[in-house]
């Protein structure tokens, strides 16, 4: 079992993985070009662990030991010893490809390389590397330290061994793993995209209001949250970007066509809870 992992990108997802991996006794090299981003991530992780310790979920000793296993890195060469390196940078194919090319030259040949991308195909990221078979997707759901699932994405060139190493890793973090093909939206985002899309069509056709649709989905369907409150919480802009990515990657399959309501709201800056107004007022 690997003991040492590297994480590239100390944002929400990268920080969340560092949090869980340090508690799972991995030595974590947390890399970012900007040291302040790493400091912000470690402060966030410390606060989350303190809350867990206050709630009796972990002991103070576990917290102290876990935090001591996270090391700030600002040079990619400092990840050379890692057995797994996980990329969690911006959703931009060029940035990711450049990064993986650099990693390909820095890390050991047997190191597993993983991307946390939710919209860019693993196959595209791995294309052109010396060993594309060692690249898999590890799709986490925010907040990473609290959600229960991770999708392990098998790219067109990912090997069986890499896929099973990816599964072992996320399961050691306490997640349930589900293996998926490298298809647009994998499983969860693909199905949720239809769920949101259909709710938007029902709204667009004037069959019911957003509030009534949410109430029906919860009180008749038994869902814990309605589609519109969920879209508001996740961000209308993020939802629009995800819907557009799935639509484009499926070569404009009409099932995934984003709804004009979402596009108009995103353009108007009506972005959901974070902007104070979405389908509902906050």
């Amino acid at each position: 079992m690997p003991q040492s992992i590297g994480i590239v990108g100390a944002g929400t997802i990268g920080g969340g993985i560092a949090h869980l991996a340090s508690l799972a006794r991995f030595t974590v090299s947390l890399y970012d070009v900007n040291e302040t981003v790493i400091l912000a991530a470690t402060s966030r992780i410390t606060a989350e662990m303190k809350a867990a310790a206050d709630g009796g979920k972990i002991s103070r000793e576990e917290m102290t030991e876990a935090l001591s296993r996270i090391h700030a890195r600002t040079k990619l060469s400092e990840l050379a010893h890692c057995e797994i390196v996980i990329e969690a940078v911006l959703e931009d194919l060029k940035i990711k490809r450049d990064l993986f090319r650099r990693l390909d030259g820095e890390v050991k040949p047997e190191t597993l390389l993983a991307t946390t991308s939710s919209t860019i195909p693993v196959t595209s990221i791995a294309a052109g590397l010396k060993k594309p078979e060692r690249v898999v997707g590890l799709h986490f759901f925010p907040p990473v330290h609290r959600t229960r699932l991770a999708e392990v994405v098998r790219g067109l060139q990912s090997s069986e061994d890499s896929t099973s190493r990816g599964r072992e890793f996320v399961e050691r973090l306490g997640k349930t793993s589900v293996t998926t093909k490298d298809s647009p939206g994998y499983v969860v985002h693909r199905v949720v995209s239809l769920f949101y899309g259909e709710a938007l069509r029902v709204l667009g056709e004037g069959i019911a209001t957003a509030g009534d649709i949410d109430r029906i989905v919860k009180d008749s369907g038994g869902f814990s949250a309605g589609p519109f409150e969920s879209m508001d919480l996740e961000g209308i802009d993020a939802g629009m970007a995800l819907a557009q990515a799935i639509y484009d990657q499926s070569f404009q399959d009409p099932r995934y066509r984003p709804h004009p309501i979402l596009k108009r709201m995103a353009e108007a800056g009506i972005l959901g809870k974070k902007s104070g107004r979405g389908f509902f007022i906050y």
Partner: protein
Amino acid sequence: MKASSTKGPKGVSVLLFGDEPLVAEYRRVASSCGYEILSPGETKNLKGAATRASIALELSNVDLAAKKERLVALDKALPETTAILTSSVNVTVLDQSSWVSMRHRLIGIAAFPTLLEKDLVEIAPSVYTLDPAVAVAVRFLGSLKKKAAVVQDRVGMVMPRILCQVINETMFAVQDGTSSPGEIDLAMKLGAGYPLGPLEWGERVGFGQVYATLKALHDDLGEERYRICPLLKEIATTGKFWRDGSK
């Protein structure tokens, strides 16, 4: 043939027709709330039952020819003031109104397997439905301890339409090998907080019901978006389904 009946403490009678498992679900809930359930096996035995019924429920979604026949018979047998709650998941109340002479008493209901387990039921009046009939429907559902949500009269209504689309998409994901049926269900429950995996939900609803609703949506809206997954059609037709590779 005499109408079968279950006497309830209130002595108020409900005339019940439709597809299984819907009839069983409504019978169970209405009986537990004290209603007398009248279920004539054939429409020709309606007369006696119709004079005793306070409300009639027609809960068919799949065989629309049989549904039409029953509604026509109900319309003839029931007193003019008795409201008819009719499933309008696969055919609108407006379309059903053209089958009967007393269209003012028809109210649509989202009668769809598994949805009566929760607290809220969608109803849809047509443009012809009069307010007293809507009030009767709301009071009846209230007596079953259910809230009513009034929606526009459209094929699929709200929850059946969204649910069937989710099940259809999940079936496409199984068909193209995105993941295994068991893992997809698990992913949707853990990753999206769904109360049931879409495939196990489809099994509980019955894939024949899901197929009928998707076909009605496709016919009504005429969009490629509502194209039915061939695997779903195969399962709805043959009744065979596999999980994780085993038939």
